[in-house]
């Protein structure tokens, strides 16, 4: 029991962050019109590409002689970049139709 209490008290910041971020995610898109569902999904898809950072760290820390970890890390970087770059570009293309028109 003591372990849990100690864990709770020393990780309060993180517990608050997780709960608030959960609510923020819901709150921030709660009023989205139907027509934006697909672009928003696509934009969120690009944002979880933030795992590319994990890929970079994994590859950076892979020992030079460990072929398996180097391969995994390299694949992770390539796939993560595809997620990020492809995700943002495809979202931008979907959102082109919403660009501001010049008023006459």
């Amino acid at each position, binding site marked *: 029991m003591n372990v849990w209490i100690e864990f709770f008290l020393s990780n309060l910041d993180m517990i608050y962050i997780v709960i608030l971020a959960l609510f923020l995610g819901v709150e921030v898109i709660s009023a989205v019109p139907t027509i934006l569902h697909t672009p928003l999904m696509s934009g969120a898809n690009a*944002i979880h590409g933030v795992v590319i950072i994990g890929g970079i760290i994994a590859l950076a820390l892979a020992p030079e002689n460990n072929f398996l970890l180097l391969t995994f890390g390299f694949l*992770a970087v390539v796939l993560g970049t595809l997620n990020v770059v492809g995700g943002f570009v495809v979202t931008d293309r979907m959102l082109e139709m919403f660009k501001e028109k010049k008023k006459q």
Partner: protein
Amino acid sequence: MDSGLAKVILEFSYLIAALSFIFGLKMMSHPRTARRGNAVAAAGMGVAILATILYLVMEDLMPMTNLGLIIAGLGIGSVAGTWAARKVPMTAMPQMVSLFNGMGGACVALISLVEVYHFHPETWDLYAYLEYGSILLGTLIGSISFSGSIIAWGKLEGKISDKWARIKGINIMNALLLLVTLGYGLYIWINGDLEFFKVLIFFGLAILYGITFVLPIGGADMPVVISLLNSFTGTAAAFAGFAYDNMAMIIGGILVGSAGTLLTILMTRAMNRSLMNVLLGAIVGGGSATDEEGEKTIKEVTPQDAAIMLAYANKVIFVPGYGLAVAQAQHALHELEKLLEERGVDVKYAIHPVAGRMPGHMNVLLAEADVPYDKLLELEQANQEFPTTDVVVIIGANDVVNPAAEQDPSSPIYGMPILQAYKAKNVIVIKRSLRPGYAGIDNPLFYMDNTRMLFADAKKAIEEIIKAIQEL
């Protein structure tokens, strides 16, 4: 704690990235700011990536070969990602998103597996168990998201058929597979078993479950599945963030996980379904799929969504019919026309010779509302314009836009010239109910993919659209 300059730059960049994700998502949920929101989030992502590399270089944490590999990986991913995203036709966007989502899921699974390799806790205390739990959950959810997304992509591309849904008991088999996977994961977690090939088996089971989970779901429901898998990858990214103790990954992952879940629910609601109904459709939908005319579904639209479609269109054509006259909506319609013209939208009216109850009925009504005469198109002119029109709004007309007159020789109105509204990119039909028109014939236009129904009194509906555009 390390408080060197590199660390400060790194953490501050992650803070900026987290803020850019929050503001980016917020802006993306409104049409006027959506595109900028996407750019904001992308910029934040760039900052986070650069800061991470800068930190690793400044702290001298990696050999040059690894830096070279990182830059090569980023280069290959960027070129391939941009190329694929640019090349894909507009109609194939959802499967492209699914593919990119799968890449993200695979990335999480891989970095989680790498972390198993690095993870050697001195004692198996609560922290060690939690970290190992995060690693395993990242592997599990990332893998499901990866293989599930690939299957979803295949279904939308038409490469994988829906016949899997008809296999008896596939949902029960899936439930069993999920139980086995979770049970096995729990077993290696509780035993603190870090043997690499045992975790690889767990990875394999999760991949397999991702495949069988999506296979029986109908192709038409794939957008919902993609949205769900998208929130899965977000959740997996958050778990990987815990394992890597990385704030940008934690915040970005949780945001996408929760926003994605809500978005999935909103999407099922827009289809008048529940998420359970979509996921277990193989069982639930079994009885209703026997309609001999095939599936006929209509899609509804709210006045707010209709307003956005109109306000951001380049060219709009109104097709008035008897319903306009009944509702006396001509003045409201002229208001809407002026409002759209102010925003730079090209607005025209298409008048069918027999629209209404007498020839010229519509012309009289619209003239009464001061609609300029040069905005009225006759049948042939209108039919030339429809293919290049973004949105056609049909207000209380039915038979004069019924494609059955062209396509169905058994139809009583076969051969009657119609306004080919179905050729437009989007069609909004404002109508009080699904009741057939004057001639008593069903209208296939209402069931087409690019058609949205707005069930309401014409005048009320148009007034609500006007209000919604003014609030944009």
